[in-house]
């Protein structure tokens, strides 16, 4: 091994610890040649203060310490290990994003509750003065009113509710933009907020992807579901996917069928996002066609029934 320096180097590398004296490898402790052991080592600590000249010796050290037989093998093993580490880091980051989205959704729900509560209070307190205006209109009226200037408490209260509404909107916007990249297919099929709610209820995108679509259909209707299972009442037709416009804008008699179709496409979307994350716009088109079909079929049946009746 060639180095002109006569210094002693103790080197911590991804494949072991080494001592080099006068350019010769005098001591070595190599790591087991498998990805798990190598990754454990890479994660444990890092070397930043290594003499630049030593960086030219990595392959030589690996070969002369018996870790690998050739430079080619050196690169093969390093590549395999770093590729696995990169995958792990990506998955970890994605999991964190899951948790973020869940926090955002839950905070939106909390804020909605608070906004309603505070808004009602304001209504009871100031509503009469403003000709029974309600909600946002009432708040705006109070904020822009001259006479209220003297009643700073009411003004403060109204401003606070307005501010809450704004923050809620910011969070909703943020969810939209995050969902677009985190779960593009789910967002396309279900919309950002409903998609995020489903992730939240399922406890993560990965969990949602693993669920059968019949479970997705009744997420958020657990009370009704267990009532059904225990006492044999009618099963719930839909959980939070009721918020999907295709479901709630349809006639009540069709909602069960449509909810089933929506849930099945949502399941497929969640699985796509969990494993590849490329947007497939056909999902929503398919779903819309299917819902159209369900509606047509039912109107035919109705016509049929009517003609029988007459």
């Amino acid at each position, binding site marked *: 091994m060639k180095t002109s320096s006569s210094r002693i180097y103790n080197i911590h590398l991804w494949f072991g610890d080494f001592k080099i004296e006068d350019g010769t490898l005098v001591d070595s402790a190599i790591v087991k040649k498998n990805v798990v052991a190598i990754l454990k080592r890479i994660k444990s600590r890092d070397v930043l203060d*290594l003499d630049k000249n030593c*960086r*030219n010796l990595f392959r030589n050290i690996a070969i002369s310490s018996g870790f690998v037989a050739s430079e080619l093998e050196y690169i093969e093993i390093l590549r395999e290990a770093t*590729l696995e580490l990169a995958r792990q880091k*990506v998955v*970890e*980051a994605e999991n964190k994003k899951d948790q973020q989205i869940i926090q955002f959704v839950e905070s939106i729900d909390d804020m909605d509750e608070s906004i309603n509560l505070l808004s009602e209070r304001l209504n009871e307190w100031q509503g009469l003065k403003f000709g029974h205006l309600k909600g946002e209109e009432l708040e705006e009226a109070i904020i822009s009113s001259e006479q209220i200037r003297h009643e700073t408490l009411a003004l403060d209260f109204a401003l606070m509710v307005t501010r809450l509404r704004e923050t809620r909107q910011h969070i909703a916007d943020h969810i939209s933009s995050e969902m677009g990249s985190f779960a593009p297919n789910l967002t396309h099929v279900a919309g950002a907020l409903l998609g995020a709610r489903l992730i939240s209820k399922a406890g993560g995108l990965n969990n949602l992807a693993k669920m059968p679509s019949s479970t997705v259909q009744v997420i958020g209707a657990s009370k009704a579901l267990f009532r059904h299972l225990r006492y044999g009442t009618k099963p719930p037709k839909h959980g939070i996917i009721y918020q999907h416009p295709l479901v709630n804008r349809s006639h009540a008699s069709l909602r069960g069928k449509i909810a089933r179709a929506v849930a099945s496409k949502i399941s497929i979307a969640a699985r796509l996002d969990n494993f590849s994350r490329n947007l497939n716009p056909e999902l929503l088109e398919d779903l819309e066609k299917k819902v159209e079909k369900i509606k047509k079929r039912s109107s035919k049946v109705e016509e049929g029934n009517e003609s029988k009746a007459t």
Partner: protein
Amino acid sequence: MKVKPHKITGVYLVDNNLATRGSVVYGERTFGDYRFWDPRRSKLAALIRKKGDLAIESDQKVLYLGAASGTTVSHLSDIVSLVYAVEVSPRVARDLIRVCENRMNIIPLVSDASRPDYGQVVELVDLIYQDVAQKKQAEIAMKNAEMFLKVGGYAFIMIKARSIDVTAKPREVYKSQIKKLEEIFNIEAVRELEPFHKDHAAVIAKIT
């Protein structure tokens, strides 16, 4: 189609379009196993268009900072022997990983180049290529050069004027970045990447 070798070994001109040889990666146009290398898409391709004689050799090891989804990395891996590809964003790294799965000579590192944590992995390299579009990019280039670049090695630094100061004139931004880089580099050339990339310049720097 007519194929001619470019001055840089491993780069080709196919009907006067830049190309490298290897397997398809991101849906680029191909001719046989020649993959077209679009200068509007890759700053390195644009730089090769602007300055044909670059110190890129087939036996080099390259540290690539800001690998993004790996389009340029994939072409570079067709040319040189090994690429250490650093990308900080896990989201973008997803695509980079896909590229690495099909190439044996890319070492993916999901890390922040401004706080290098790949000191026990990256060898001494012949070239640092940087395309990070960050305010502190000169500092990042210098830190990595001091750790990993061999004596006499080159750094190709892509400067995006608007990521450093949106209000300043691009040329002023280039000047200020070059001044910082001169602390440890000899600046051998600066090329604006118009018309391929607006408000971008490439700095060719040799470590002293």
